[in-house]
């Protein structure tokens, strides 16, 4: 061993494949003591896979890993935790039915003589949360808190677990800007104490703001590692996709001119809609050929609103009408028949992985191509058309969906609604967790739909998404509409301020 202390974490020649498909190819990655290491890359570039290997979730991989110079090979999260590696996962992972305190100490409740020390746990949780500027009762039920707060508590768990290496996989996606600032302060504190942090995010500004070093992944390969001070966003995007992206970059930074179409007929009219504690008194209208953006912080009721529009949740009050016809959807099927289509946040929850492509595309139009009996030949013809027009690879309709790449799966998901275009398309977080390239594809498709005269509602917690897609923007705050931007220029700052 050399004089210089070995780095806390060092990976050499890591390769990992899932069923013959390479997710990581020969990756070398080094994390230094007391650094915040940003990680960026397209969807499916392999960032989470690498982190999961480090955190012990994938025991099967090729290559070597060393902690402080000692070779290790984790086969379960337990082993990784024991070695001082803590990870906050991309998806919220808390136990909603347990108390806040237990969630802070999840899996490592303090014990005294083998007996769980409840008092120590409560006191410790209160102390830890206070240091994060969070003021909640440690005895409160986790599930009763707002999503952003839960995310912060999960962060607190990993930060205070004593982990020397902290991995944060898209920790800010559920946080409001002030919460992000608070998080960054804490991260700087952690860095000051000599611990190391891996920070994954698609918000390139955030990455540049907090990181000391940035590593770029593409297609399972590590493309570059640079000091954050020496690079800018354009440089990052270039490396991530290998192409320029003027329009998107524009929407990331500059202001957008909004325009509205006052003459087109109203296709969706919502009056005084309310559902439980999620939102109340929401009134909206969407015209044909218009994209209405709805922006708000995580937990402001956006997700619930989207689901209510599509009949997945039941409204307690208010009315909805589609093309002038009043609608009170009690099921998604009813909403669908009335002409509303919905694309949820996660791809996973809208596709059938073990079924062929054509069945995935035809599922929502089966009723139109045959009342009672199926007509597979028609289904396949339709699917072939979409496969061609969206240039889906491989171009066969019999392929099982699960074997398509992420981007192609996304196209299949959208193709579902292209055969008989609905009157209104509701997109919830259409770009959540998406890389810049994929985001541009979505923008292109949505603009195409708008040209066809569809009314589109885009609900998102990402200002860039709303700004790049919408013709008109309303802002939601704590379940109510608080502001509308129409017919004039709006910038990201204005949007954030309104929320």
């Amino acid at each position: 061993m050399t004089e210089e202390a070995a780095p806390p974490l060092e990976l050499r020649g890591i390769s990992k494949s899932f069923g013959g498909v390479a997710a990581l190819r020969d990756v070398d990655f080094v994390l230094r003591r007391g650094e915040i290491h940003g990680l960026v890359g397209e969807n499916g570039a392999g960032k989470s896979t690498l982190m999961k290997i480090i955190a012990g979730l994938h025991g099967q991989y090729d290559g070597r890993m060393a902690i402080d110079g000692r070779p290790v090979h984790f086969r379960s999260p337990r082993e990784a935790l024991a070695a001082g590696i803590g990870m906050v996962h991309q998806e919220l992972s808390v136990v909603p039915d347990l108390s806040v305190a237990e969630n802070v100490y999840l899996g490592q409740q303090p014990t005294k003589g083998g007996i769980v020390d409840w008092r120590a746990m409560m006191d410790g949780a209160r102390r830890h949360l206070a240091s994060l500027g969070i003021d909640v009762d440690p005895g409160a039920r986790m599930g009763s808190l707002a999503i952003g707060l839960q995310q912060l508590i999960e962060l607190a768990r990993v930060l205070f677990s004593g982990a020397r290496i902290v991995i944060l996989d898209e920790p800010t996606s559920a946080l409001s800007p002030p919460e992000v600032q608070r998080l960054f302060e804490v991260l700087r504190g952690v860095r000051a104490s000599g611990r190391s942090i891996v920070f994954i995010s698609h918000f390139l500004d955030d990455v540049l703001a907090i990181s000391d070093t940035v590593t770029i992944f593409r297609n399972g390969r590590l493309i570059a590692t640079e000091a954050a001070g020496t690079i800018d966003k354009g440089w990052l995007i270039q490396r991530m996709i290998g192409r320029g992206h003027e329009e998107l970059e524009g929407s990331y930074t500059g202001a957008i001119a909004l325009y509205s179409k006052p003459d087109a007929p109203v296709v969706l009219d919502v009056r005084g809609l309310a559902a439980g504690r999620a939102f109340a008194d929401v009134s909206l209208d969407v015209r044909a050929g218009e994209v209405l953006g709805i922006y708000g912080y995580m937990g402001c009721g956006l997700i619930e609103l989207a689901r209510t529009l599509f009949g997945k949740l039941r409204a307690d009050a208010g009315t909805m009408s589609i093309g002038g016809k009043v609608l009170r959807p009690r099921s998604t099927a009813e909403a669908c028949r009335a002409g509303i289509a919905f694309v949820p946040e996660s791809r996973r929850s809208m596709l059938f992985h073990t079924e062929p492509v054509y069945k995935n595309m035809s599922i929502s139009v089966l009723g139109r191509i045959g009342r009672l009996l199926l007509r597979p030949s028609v289904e396949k013809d339709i699917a072939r058309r979409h496969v061609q027009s969206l240039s889906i690879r491989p171009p066969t309709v019999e392929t099982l969906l699960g074997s398509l790449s992420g981007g192609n799966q996304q196209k299949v998901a959208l193709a579902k609604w292209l055969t008989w275009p609905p009157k209104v398309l509701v997109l919830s977080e259409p770009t959540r967790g998406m890389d810049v390239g994929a985001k541009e594809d979505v923008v292109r498709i949505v603009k195409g739909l708008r040209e066809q005269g569809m009314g589109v509602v885009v609900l998102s917690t990402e200002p860039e998404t709303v700004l790049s897609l919408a013709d008109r923007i309303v802002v939601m705050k704590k379940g109510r509409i608080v502001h509308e931007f129409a017919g004039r220029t709006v910038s990201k700052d204005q949007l954030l301020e309104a929320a």
Partner: protein
Amino acid sequence: MTAMRVFLRNQMRIIAPFATLIVLVAFFCLTSGSFASLDNAANILTQISVTGIIAVGLTFVILCAEIDLSVAAIANVTGIAVAYFTLQEGYVNIANVPLPGFAAIILALIGCFMLGLVNAAGITLIGIPSFIMTLAMMQIGAGISALLVRGQIAYAVPDLVSLLGAGRVAGIPCLVLVAAAFLLAGHLVLTYTRFGRYVYMVGGNREAAEYAGVNVKLVLGAVIVISAMCSGVAGMLGVAHFGSAQQNEFDGYLLDAIAAVVVGGTSLFGGRGGIGNTIIGLLILGVLNNGLDHIQIDSFLKILIRGLILLAALIINVYVQKVRESA
């Protein structure tokens, strides 16, 4: 190439149980002199017919990744109900309500439809997990049966039921024909109708089906009701076949019907399998139960053997699922 791989992988789910069937048949042919006869083949077919009708409904339910533990109880209730509404001979000490045969059949079917509806409501509207909702229905069904038959035994059923359950057409038991018709209908519905496609989709990814505008609750409710109706028909014909209606008569069919579906290779996790699998499963169980009677074997060992074979089938079922997913 892809198509070929897909084809082979799809077949795997049927190859494993089919091989089991062949092995069993070969084993019994070699060890027993009386097993391999046309007469005995007819026996086997008759013996799996009632299970078969129940298994059709259960296949729908399991394809949706749900379970129905009340099939046997509902079969019992319906069988008892149809006898309850039929004029019984004088020596049958039952306070029954004789109606014309047609009315008795309709009433019994409405009864099992209602029980299915209660199951469906509990599962889809209230949100009770199916295994426990139908466990409660098992108890409720037993309660209703007990109230109707009050510990007595009824013998008479309407002529139509009697014909279908115990009659023969051209030497073939009608029961076998009815079971074949149910299996065929189930297969056609699952393969060639929109509803059938929805069943697979709901079983494959419930959330995705819902976001695609499929009325998932309706589909789930429908399969639960279909299961109750199949069980009801099986119960009615079973009463005719066995010649009497009494408490707990069909209890053993619960495990048999589940075993048939699962042993046949329909995935417990939904979305994969079908009536073809169920038919193989029925034959495996039929051959096994029948064959064990043909060879000299400790009677007390039979129960254990059935349990072990069920377990083996479960392991294969789950294993095949894993191979598919990792492939």
